[in-house]
């Protein structure tokens, strides 16, 4: 290992020093750990629980949380922790799909209206106004109703309702960047509008958009869980987090059926928000 340190160039050493100089607050570290666990749940759920999420032992139905069943069991004796862990993949993936739709479509709209201005800006601006005027949850409900009751449709609906926010932010950032002196300098150096857009405007806007995307990821988990709670997602035996809360509400004697998945949702969303805030501040 000693030979490796000798190979590090001075610039790399400076960069490494710069990286360690960024202090990570403890709450951000905790949030990051939470996110990593949630991501692992969605990728390799079988490593975290030995129970099958869809097979229960009816003799053990509605038992309270214990060492054997961390989050207790439901009315069919299925382990709630296992159901939460196995439901993560669907919840996280749909949130990612939602963010991706909002990010890509919203950014393109914002980029086009901010960079081209004129008629394009006016038309796209009014479309965004219409999107903003309809409450996003209502819009999502309408979209799911017309596309069909599936989690993926709920994700698309959530994504569409987020387009307006991304478009607005992107437009503002593009306007700021395209007015910069270095963009004008790029024209003088023989660059055309495409060079300016891809080379200078985009790299100078993505940072704040990425921070919004992270924030929107947390919101999407919440919106999709709400849609699932109302029955706008995949039907049981799927175990989306929102669906778990919804099916738990029928058993007043077993409050953990609601609290355990709800707690997971709350902790995940709070962690995502904390990281987003930190990203925005440390830019």
């Amino acid at each position, binding site marked *: 290992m000693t030979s490796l340190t000798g190979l590090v160039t001075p610039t790399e050493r400076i960069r490494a020093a710069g990286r360690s100089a960024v202090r990570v607050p403890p709450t951000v570290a905790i949030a990051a750990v939470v996110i990593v666990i949630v991501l692992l749940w969605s990728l390799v759920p079988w490593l975290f629980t030995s129970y099958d999420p869809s097979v229960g032992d009816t003799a053990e139905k509605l038992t309270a949380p214990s060492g054997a069943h961390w989050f207790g069991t439901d009315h069919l004796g299925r382990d709630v922790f296992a159901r939460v862990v196995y439901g993560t993949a669907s919840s996280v993936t749909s949130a990612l799909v939602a963010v991706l739709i909002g990010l890509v479509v919203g950014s393109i709209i914002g980029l086009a209206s901010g960079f081209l201005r004129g008629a394009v800006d006016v038309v796209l601006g009014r479309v965004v106004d219409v999107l903003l005027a309809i409450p996003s949850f209502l819009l999502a409900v309408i979209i799911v109703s017309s596309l069909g009751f599936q989690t993926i449709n709920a994700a698309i609906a959530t994504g569409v309702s987020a387009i307006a926010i991304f478009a607005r932010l992107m437009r503002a950032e593009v306007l700021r960047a395209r007015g910069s*002196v*270095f963009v004008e300098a*790029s024209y*003088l*150096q*023989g660059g055309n509008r495409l060079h300016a857009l891809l080379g*200078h405007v985009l790299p100078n806007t993505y940072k704040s958009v990425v921070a919004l995307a992270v924030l929107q990821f947390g919101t999407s988990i919440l919106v999709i869980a709400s849609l699932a709670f109302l029955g706008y997602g995949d039907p049981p035996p799927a175990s989306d987090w929102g669906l778990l809360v919804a099916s738990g509400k029928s058993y007043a004697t077993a409050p953990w059926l609601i609290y355990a998945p709800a707690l997971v949702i709350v902790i995940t969303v709070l962690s995502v928000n904390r990281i987003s805030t930190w990203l925005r501040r440390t830019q």
Partner: protein
Amino acid sequence: MTVSIDTMRPALPEVVPPVRSTGPDGRPLLSVEGLSVSYGDTSVVRGVSFSLERGQSLALIGESGSGKSTVAKSILRLLPAGESAVRGSVSLDGRELFGLPERQFRPLRGRLLGYIPQDPSSALNPVRTIGSQAHEAAALTGEPDARVRRRDILSVFERVGLPDPERVYASYPHQLSGGMLQRVLIGLTVLPRPALIVADEPTSALDVTIQKLILDLLSELRRDLGISLLLITHDLAVAAERADSIVVLKNGIVEESGSSRHVFSTPTSEYARQLHADVPALNPDRYRIQRGAASGTTPAVASAVTSPAIEVHAATKRFRAGDVDVTALDGVSFTVAKGTTHALVGESGSGKTTAVRLLLGLEQPDAGRIEVAGTPVHGQTPAGLRGLRRHLQLVYQNPFTSLDPTWRVSRIVREPLDRFRVGERADRARLVERTIEEVGLPTSVLSRRPGQLSGGQRQRVAIARALIVRPDVLVLDEPTSALDVSVQAGILELLSRLQREHGLSYLLVSHDLALVRQLADTVTVLQRGKVVESGTVEQIFARPAHEYTRALLEAIPSTSP
């Protein structure tokens, strides 16, 4: 369009050296001893000591990062608490300021100790009238009657040379020019009759002719009201002209101190000598000698027979601002001979920036003709304009905004090569390295981003970017006004060398006549969009024909303290 009245005021009488006088007890008014300031592990000011007598003025000079502003802030106790560690002693009027509880220090601010900030436009609240903010300063006099306070404010406005004090009183900050705002702030500072005024680069945000008037006003008030002045500046010429004594700071250490006459005429430290050599006003022929030695003859004469590099003929440009047409440029003509430097001189609003934008094809003229090396700039196809720009490059005023912060230096310098498809791909990296070395930077900067470079280094990168396609003409838009005097000297040195080596033609845009005298061969003076005078540098400086040119010339700090 706001027309500043400052330019119309006659110059104030010359400053009479004040009579040396100490306080009643013979102690100096301000005495700083062994002042050291550090932020964390970095020490910014180390063992600085100086004293200022009553009614005298002292200039604290040095480049940015020398700690001069930190010294001022520690005297005013404006350093961020908790982040900075201060040692030493500062006593004002016999009172030790450090260790004084905030409750006892607050009454001294304003009444004993006044402060004039660098940028007057950011020092006033934009949503309140001047008058309502003036009452805050007037309240320091302890006068209970608001009507009397109002009368005091109006009379002090008159005293600092503001016309129509009633109108100023009722105005909002954005309705006044920068020079008028600085007069307001000076008026409010002297209103409570402090014993000491700390002025932190009080004119660096103002136009040249106004700078002189503001400095004249400060000298006059100091003489008439017996106020001491601690002037913080980076300009040795200004310090020598305005202060009785000078303290030269470098890296937080006093390099030299003494009377202005002494420091100025016989500097003992190497650094003070360097500063002296770097000030354009004091060394008018610094680069001329080099250039003359290279060509053996005056370039303007030598190349007068060949075709000009730039020809601007009767260019006119109007802008619509609301309902009124503003003529930014009114029938302006000038030519730049090949291999020479032509300077476009004027204050903000004179149209010099518009002229540059027309020349580069960034704006369309309403009338007139502009040619670069015989090719018209306007009426070109985009491809034609692109081809033209290959031979015509611009160095922007502010290197902090002209370089993309997300790009590395190697990519920034390489961009024109890629866009204009110059040379083979493999050769471009080598050319980038060579150009970076040519502008005096180590090749290690290539992997850095602009944020990791100093202002001077950034401007060198900007020059390398403009130079790499080997243009014939370089337009320099106030290339050093965002930089320190000593950094400026390095950049000017570089520009002068590059011109000699590559036979470049420069169009230099500047408001600083001292700099123009150093670098330019011919000059065009612009005022409100019109050419008021043009000719060779020698003609203009020896026999200015127009009153406005004379006002600009007077703004150069005089070299005989």
